[in-house]
């Protein structure tokens, strides 16, 4: 993917004339022209035109990793809240171990945070699964919320940004496509530092050379924290 300036388009705008292109997400064909159906950035790939959203609520897609809260427990699964305009459901049959059906609250109670994958998106709602490895209940750590449209920036190209943050802070981080981020580190200070860095990335998401800037931010942060820690150690010696 080449990093070139993408144009902002608004609803109703003609974004492509003629039959050479196919209308992708957020666009529609009207006669000869392809017209934008929503506000966002125009993205052309091969012969497909689509619109990358800049704002708005999270719309679940199949295969997305999301972090959800248990909202209710039914007889065969959990109703989840994933910050999307659909009701979402995690059935017991989509759990990797054997769960006794008579008391589901034993496994996940109301308010628990669960990392899950979107299994299917239907008109009536979203089905979730925790079958793939690494999914399930999130314990300890802290949870923060970021704008769901900024998630790709926080993850970076092939996870470059997030692995950099993980390495520098020594935290375990799970990012849900719905904008919820779970951070677990060795100390609260580490977690707060990771949080600050993620917030920095989301705020500066439109800046060029974001990766370098984040690297600098991490370095400076580490220096500051290094000072604090050495000061603490000295105090301890006295």
């Amino acid at each position, binding site marked *: 993917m080449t990093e070139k300036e993408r144009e902002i388009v608004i*609803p109703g705008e003609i974004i492509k004339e003629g039959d050479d292109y196919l209308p992708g997400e957020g666009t529609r064909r009207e006669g000869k022209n392809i017209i934008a159906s*929503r506000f966002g950035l125009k993205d052309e790939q091969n012969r497909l035109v689509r619109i990358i959203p*800049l*704002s708005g609520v999270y719309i679940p897609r199949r295969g997305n990793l999301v972090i959800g809260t248990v909202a209710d427990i039914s007889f065969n699964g959990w109703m989840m809240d994933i910050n999307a305009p659909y009701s979402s459901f995690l059935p017991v049959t989509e759990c990797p171990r054997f769960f006794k059906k008579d008391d589901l609250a034993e496994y996940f109670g109301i308010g628990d945070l669960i990392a899950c994958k979107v299994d299917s998106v239907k008109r009536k709602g979203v089905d979730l699964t925790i079958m793939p490895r690494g999914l399930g209940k999130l314990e300890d750590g802290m949870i923060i919320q970021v704008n769901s449209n900024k998630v790709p920036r926080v993850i970076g190209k092939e996870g470059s940004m997030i692995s950099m943050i993980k390495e520098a802070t020594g935290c375990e981080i799970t990012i849900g496509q719905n904008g919820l981020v779970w951070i677990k580190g060795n100390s609260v200070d580490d977690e707060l530092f990771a949080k600050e860095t993620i917030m920095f990335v989301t705020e500066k*998401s439109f800046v060029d050379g974001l990766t370098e800037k984040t690297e600098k931010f991490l370095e400076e942060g580490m220096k500051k924290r290094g000072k604090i820690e050495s000061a603490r150690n000295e105090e301890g010696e006295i």
Partner: protein
Amino acid sequence: MSEGSYKKRFDGRKLDETRKIKAEVGIIPNADGSAMFSFGDTIAIAAVYGPKVMHPQHNQNPEKGTLRVNYDMLTFSVTERKKPGPSRRSQEISKVTEWALEPVVMLDDFPNTVVDVHITILQANASTRCAGINAAALALAHAGIPMKELVCSVSVGKMDKTIVVDVIKEEEDYEEGEGATDIAMSFTSNSGKLTHLQLDGNISAKELKEAIETGKKACKEIYEIQKKTLKSIKE
């Protein structure tokens, strides 16, 4: 048009000139989409929340999402303090705004949900519903709601026999000759279809047609401003 008693406008504008228009997008950080739109002294802000699951459940529509508009004036927006809370007038304008915007939003992919639009008038000098509709259209686009096109709204007045664009309070109260007629209208941005038309006063069919044509022209200018505002946004 020249024989009427109203020849020069109170604020010295040309007959087909709107007040100074200002627009801004993304002014409310906690909303999913937001915008400010002003015609001179009339300032409207709009915040969009959703699509989100509709509550109470009996209002859910399993076929498509619902658009819900709430229009309100702040107590200090007018000279005489406005009693806070919904009134007959604000309920009417909420509903009318909803109908003006409904033809362009496409909520078929969001059954059982609602898109909430909250329009607040910070300062009023006539044409508040038009400023509100313009702000709401910008905010809906900013919230990433699928839309066919934008909506632009303007008020056209007939002072005695003269047709003017973007009415102010003094003109609304004009009493000489045939008096004042205030026509609020909204058009879709590209196809130029009428989505909303309200009229207060007396007017002949011929004059009304003329007024609509005048309004359509003014809406083109408003669209250009809306377009510029949305395009100038930083990621």
